[in-house]
């Protein structure tokens, strides 16, 4: 048969040695990977138990008639899409509209005031002293709990409360304004509180974002003879677009989940005429009798809307990354190479 040459044997040894080294490397990497799984296990378990299973259950029960009356349990009986249809009949769109009204009434002033404050505080020519102090002061209202605020509002805006007394003594009004029992009154209170609690946060975000704009761009604008207004409109504002978008979408998602303020202010009833009933308050009403079916269906609707909004947020954040150059690509490439090592 064929003679085995020394060179061939050497070649085979070399190959075997290489294969051994490769196996060893793979094993080591695999070993590291196992440890990685081990350390991330707690998160996934917690997620599975407290998020994943409840979410699946929520979706499952949304197709069932399932609630308790007193101590009597009704269901679960499969009813198909009945819950989804009856929840649409039950003024779901009205509560969505209420939620949007609150969001608009709070968000627009929030954005305008935040922009104004951020522009003032970063303007080198205004030379505002104690900027850090103002930042803290603006953030403070958001630190106070909504329930504490509500108690304050109950006292201040009661028919015989301080605000009405003040307005009456100034002669601005003759009869007290019924803040808690009129449509405009309750909307005003909820929007005002939302605005107060959130404008500090968005101001800080905008401040950080404006500080990130290279001073040279603004300066060259001034050197080219721009007025301050022009610098703001044509240099600062366009560069804030992603942040404004981010604030808008996150506040919209938070707005969809609006619950505590109107719940406490209207005692969970959303009155007058349910104009202060938000989607989550409505969900809460169904939860009071453990109506898993209806609240499941409502949650699925909310999930879909939030999902769409989240998708928009990701798109916006993507825009943000592209704006600042090649960073995302580099990020994308590097992990790929690392993964390549573990692959064949």
């Amino acid at each position: 048969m064929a003679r085995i040459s020394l060179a061939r044997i050497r070649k085979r040894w070399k190959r075997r040695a290489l294969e051994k080294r490769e196996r060893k490397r793979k094993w080591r990497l695999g070993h590291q990977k196992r440890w990685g799984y081990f350390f991330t296990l707690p998160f996934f378990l917690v997620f599975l138990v407290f998020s994943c299973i409840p979410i699946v259950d929520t979706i499952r029960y949304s197709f069932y008639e399932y609630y308790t009356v007193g101590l009597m349990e009704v269901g679960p009986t499969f009813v198909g899409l009945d819950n989804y249809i009856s929840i649409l009949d039950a003024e779901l769109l009205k509560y969505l509209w209420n939620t949007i009204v609150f969001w608009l009434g709070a968000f627009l002033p929030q954005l305008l005031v935040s922009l104004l404050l951020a522009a003032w505080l970063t303007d080198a020519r205004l030379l505002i002293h104690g900027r850090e102090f103002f930042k803290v002061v603006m953030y403070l209202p958001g630190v106070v709990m909504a329930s504490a605020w509500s108690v304050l509002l109950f006292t201040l805006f009661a028919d015989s409360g301080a605000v009405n007394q003040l307005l009456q003594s100034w002669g601005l009004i003759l009869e007290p304004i019924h803040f808690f029992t009129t449509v405009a009154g309750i909307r005003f209170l909820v929007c005002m509180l939302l605005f107060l609690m959130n404008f500090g946060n968005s101001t800080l975000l905008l401040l950080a974002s404006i500080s990130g704009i290279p001073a040279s761009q603004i300066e060259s604008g001034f050197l080219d003879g721009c007025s301050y207004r022009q610098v703001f409109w044509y240099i600062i504002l366009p560069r804030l677009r992603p942040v404004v978008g981010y604030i808008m979408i996150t506040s919209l998602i938070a707005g969809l989940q609006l619950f505590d303020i109107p719940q406490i202010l209207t005692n969970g009833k959303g009155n007058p005429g349910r104009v202060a009933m938000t989607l989550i308050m409505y969900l809460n009403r169904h939860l009071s009798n453990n109506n898993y079916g209806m609240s499941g269906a409502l949650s699925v609707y909310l999930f879909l809307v939030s999902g769409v909004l989240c998708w928009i947020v990701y798109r916006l954040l993507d825009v943000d990354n592209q704006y600042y150059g090649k960073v995302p690509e580099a990020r994308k490439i590097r992990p790929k190479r690392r993964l390549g090592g573990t692959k064949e």
Partner: protein
Amino acid sequence: MGKTAWNRKGTKAVGLAALTGLVAVSLLSGCGGGGKSGGGGKTAMPDTSKEGEVINFCVYQEVTKSFVNDYYPEVESVSDDEEYTYLKDGTKIHWFVYNSEEYQEKLDEHLKKQDSDDPDERIDIMDLEGDYMRKYLEAGVCIPMSEIGIQDSDIEKQYAYTKEAATLNGKVCGLSNEVAPGLFAYRRSIAKDVLGTDDPEKVQEAVSDWTKFDEVAAKMKDKGYYMLSGFADAYRVFSNNMSKPWVSDNQTVEIDPAIMDWIKMTKRYSDEGYNHKTINVFTEEWMKDQGPDGKVFGFFYSTWGINFTLVGNAGDEGFGDWAVCKGPQPFYWGASWFAAPKNMDHPEHVKDILLTLTCNKEIMKKMSIDRNTFVNNVDAMSEIAADPKTGSDFLNGQNHIALFNEVAQNINLKNLGIYDQGCTLDIIYSFSDYFLGNSTLDDAKAAFEKAIEERYPNLTEVVWPE
């Protein structure tokens, strides 16, 4: 090398064990979410023959605990944190006190464990408020009092309505310690100004039926006062005099004519300015109306309300400026019942506690005098009422016990049901927009229908009278 291999295996084993364990737990918790509620259809019978060491007592007010600690003669001592009460025979009572808002939820959790084999897991006695007592009774959670040895002859001195309200299939299932008959409490100063007298008998004559009540309301308005504070003030007076329960067939809410009368009256009072338009009782404005600057003539209040709440709200300036009369109709407001859940394991002790707190005339009489409560014993209360020394300083010496006693014997509580609490809450809030003039009667009716269907999905129809 051997060590690393072991380590690796160990890690794997631990990881696997943790994974399986947690998945199992999660599956269980997933099932638990939809678990059966207390007293449901489970048939597994726990071993009730052996008594546990503790008597578990669920209450929604501290005062119940103090009644037992202070008046039950078998009490030996109380632990420092008041969580346990030790009895002379070595048994101890474990107190579970929850506030009213969370009480039913917590109680339901306890009742789920009522099938447990460990006797100390199961509760032995519980407090139930009138608005939701029937919910527990009709769910079959409570055992008849005769089963723990309390016979009808033991409770014959209790006020009839307290027994009627807690009767299921002809058997009394709950016993009440306190009675809460209601009266109309009014300001003497306003009565003098408008009616020319503050004498309770003459004032009673002026408000003895709803027509006369309205006439007085008109006079109040002319003098710049309000007859009542708000929308819910007279609600209990009407709702206690309903001719049938809210729901009879678990499907249809039948609005009683008495409720329609309340709606009509409240609307008229709001439009005419006879009331101060407070949305509900126990709101800030409502309590302010009872204060020294209040312009409201009177409030429908029951025993605890007059003896404690009103005294507190009226303050020092109002002390002595109040009096009570029977008003247009008898009513009660807010009493509680003791009930023994099934599978309880201390029948002897519970029987003894209940006999002491709800049937023992001497102890109850002492309780009433010490604590200013109206106890559920006709003899004891009649004796106190007849005593010439009886009188309330807050009411300027008036003997209110005699009036309470009279009303208590005329209360009719046959029409309690399991939907009372929800219907009461929803009707008051659904109609508040209508009373304020912000919506029409039909809107208000629709709002109630919607609210009730959300609360009780099985109630698909609401029938309005006329």
